[in-house]
């Protein structure tokens, strides 16, 4: 990951002034980490960028915030550094599967089968064979995860490397509670909404993943084929996950639109991710509701396409931010652990 040199120089200038000032040390781990440093190399800047939860407390409290001549806006410059990891153009490209999958399905599957009535176990596979679903999803997901792992490995190495053993529990607590959005005493703008909405969204995605895993076990071990009945474990997990995802997306969107600090260049990737997550949940419910109708084939292809695009966003879009944030929180825990 090579950042733009001018952006890097600007981030270094801002962080140096933050390090000298140190008034924000009570707010979050970012400023404690800045305080432990005297030099800001690219790896350090990337680390601080991913550690920042973008709450805005430091900007509100900053004596040098624009229009001051020093133009200090840490959340903005760190968001710009972060956005280098998922350029908007690349994220838009990930959406290719959303139109492509239904289109290919329409072209390749004979019309009488695509719009025919398919019911009961194995109905989905009449439209998209199990091998296509499994190989397509598996290939994209594993490829994306491999690329993300490489990115996070580089991030870890460039920000100082080291063995994080002993800091893992502290980091897990910070990841689960999003403690850095508490503001350290002055509550962050909409911090409560952001924490709950974000974790609802994460839980929703996990539920949906669990649903797919259970369905896979059913398929291989018990020969229960999808679609499953409404009361079955995969449908219940998937529906619960879908609802949580919709609640989470709505909460995060509400927060973004209500936010006092609107001037943001890096929000394109965020809106795109939220929109796709919302589309995945809505199309999942549409498939569940109309799975016995003639539209099932098209809905299945569309839902499958949104999921493939979502998998791509893991490596090329903002969905991968979770891994970088977790790594940054792990490093922060490592640094503050008493020796």
């Amino acid at each position, binding site marked *: 990951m090579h950042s733009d040199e001018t952006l890097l120089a600007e981030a270094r200038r801002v962080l*140096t*002034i933050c*390090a*000298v*000032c140190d*008034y*924000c*040390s*009570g*707010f979050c781990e970012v400023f*404690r980490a800045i*305080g432990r440093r*005297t030099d800001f190399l690219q790896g350090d800047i990337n680390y601080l960028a991913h550690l920042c939860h973008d709450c805005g*407390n*430091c900007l*509100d*409290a*900053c*004596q*040098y*915030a624009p*229009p*001051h*001549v*020093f133009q200090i806006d840490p959340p903005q410059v760190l968001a710009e550094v972060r956005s280098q990891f998922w350029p908007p153009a690349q994220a838009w490209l990930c959406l290719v599967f959303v139109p492509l999958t239904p289109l290919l399905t329409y072209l390749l599957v004979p019309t009488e089968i695509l719009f025919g009535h398919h019911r009961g176990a194995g109905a989905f596979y009449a439209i998209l064979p199990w091998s296509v679903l499994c190989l397509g999803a598996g290939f994209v997901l594993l490829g994306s995860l491999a690329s993300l792992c490489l990115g996070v490995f580089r991030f870890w190495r460039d920000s100082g490397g080291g063995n994080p053993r002993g800091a893992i529990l502290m980091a897990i607590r910070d990841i689960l509670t999003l403690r850095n959005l508490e503001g*350290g*005493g*002055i509550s962050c703008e909409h911090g409560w909404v952001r924490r709950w909405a974000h974790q609802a969204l994460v839980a929703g995605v996990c539920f949906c993943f669990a649903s797919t895993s259970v369905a896979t076990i059913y398929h291989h071990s018990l020969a229960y084929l999808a679609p499953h009945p409404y009361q079955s474990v995969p449908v219940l997990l998937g529906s619960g996950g879908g609802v949580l995802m919709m609640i989470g997306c709505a909460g995060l969107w509400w927060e973004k639109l209500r936010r006092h600090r609107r001037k943001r260049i890096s929000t394109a990737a965020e809106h795109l991710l939220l929109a796709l997550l919302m589309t995945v949940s809505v199309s999942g419910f549409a498939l569940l509701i109309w799975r016995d109708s003639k539209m099932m084939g098209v809905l299945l292809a569309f839902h499958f396409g949104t999921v493939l695009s979502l998998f791509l966003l893991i490596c090329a879009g903002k969905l991968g931010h979770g891994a970088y944030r977790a790594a940054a929180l792990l490093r922060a825990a490592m640094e503050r652990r008493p020796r």
Partner: protein
Amino acid sequence: MAGLCAAITARQAGATVGIVEASPQYMRGGNLRHARNIRLPHEGPTHYSPGIYRGAEFEQEIIEIAEGAGDLELIRTLAVRAADLACWLADQGVVFQTDHLPYSRRTAFFLGGGKAAANALYARVHALGIDVAYECPMTELDMLDLPARAVILCSGAGQAGQGHAFINRGTPFNCGSLADNLIRAGAETGGRSDAAHLVAIDARSPPHDGGIVTRIDGMEVGMMVDQNGQRFADETEVTGPRRFTRWGQLVASLPIPKATLVLDAEGRIKVPVLAFPAMAASTLDVMAGMIDVDATLLRRSAEECGRVKTAPFFAYPVAPGLTFACHALRVDRSTRVKMRDGTVRENLFAAGAIMAACLLNTGYLSGIALTISAVFGRIAGEAAARHALG
């Protein structure tokens, strides 16, 4: 700080209050925006300050720093009324930081610094229904025809005014014209108009409002040279908290009040992080050209001090930076403005830096300006409300 405390107190006492603020909204609150900690006496450990710092010790320190020139009645009042200040500020919504701080028994730190405290006090001001008019500088006030039944002046000691040649670290709106206007109209003066609180700062700082980060530190690991390239003081003599003021005064007393901090490769590592980038040169001769001093004298200075040896060399331009002016209006125990003819103005009050030099003269202790501002702001608010409500 003083104005906000005064407005809140007066409103809580039942008066109708309006604030006339010279600055735009983003620079509101005077020099509170640049503050970090406030000096608070306490008889036992509190959640915001460890240890014990008794009122008597606090009072004694102020008397000493003012070298006997402080107004003892005001100092006594300050010590008594500072006792419940932390609780009062917390009640108004100001949040103190308790973790990730150096040990300080004498001062409490605002979480996020002074601007966060100003934001909290302004939120309180708005919740109480106090009108704030921003960008309304007042340069004159007719004492015989005041715009309200009582007026409280919290317009600072005038450090940003024309009379000061140095870079001003604080707000540019603290220009002192209102106080000058009153002095011309017969108000009694305190402190000293020819003295100021100075620290050594980077000469590349903006003319106003550079705040805390412009300070230059680390002289003891390098050398300080004047415009000729010659050293003018022992860099290792003072290394405690007083070093900032010492260098401010030393540089200001040079014939041309500019100097350069020169470090070698080893010194650069030892020096704390500084806000502006260093000028770098591979040899002392190149460095002499960059900072416009005589190369022979610079080399001789380096040999003499013995700490500047290993290339590459680094330099920071240094100038005196003005923190506070030491000029003041005299006030009585209720902060009513005293006149040279011995009378006091019953309806005109002054609180904050505009009267702080009456207590401190030319001295300064960290966080004391905020204590004076908050305590006398509250006293002024109470007294002005009493007067206005009759």
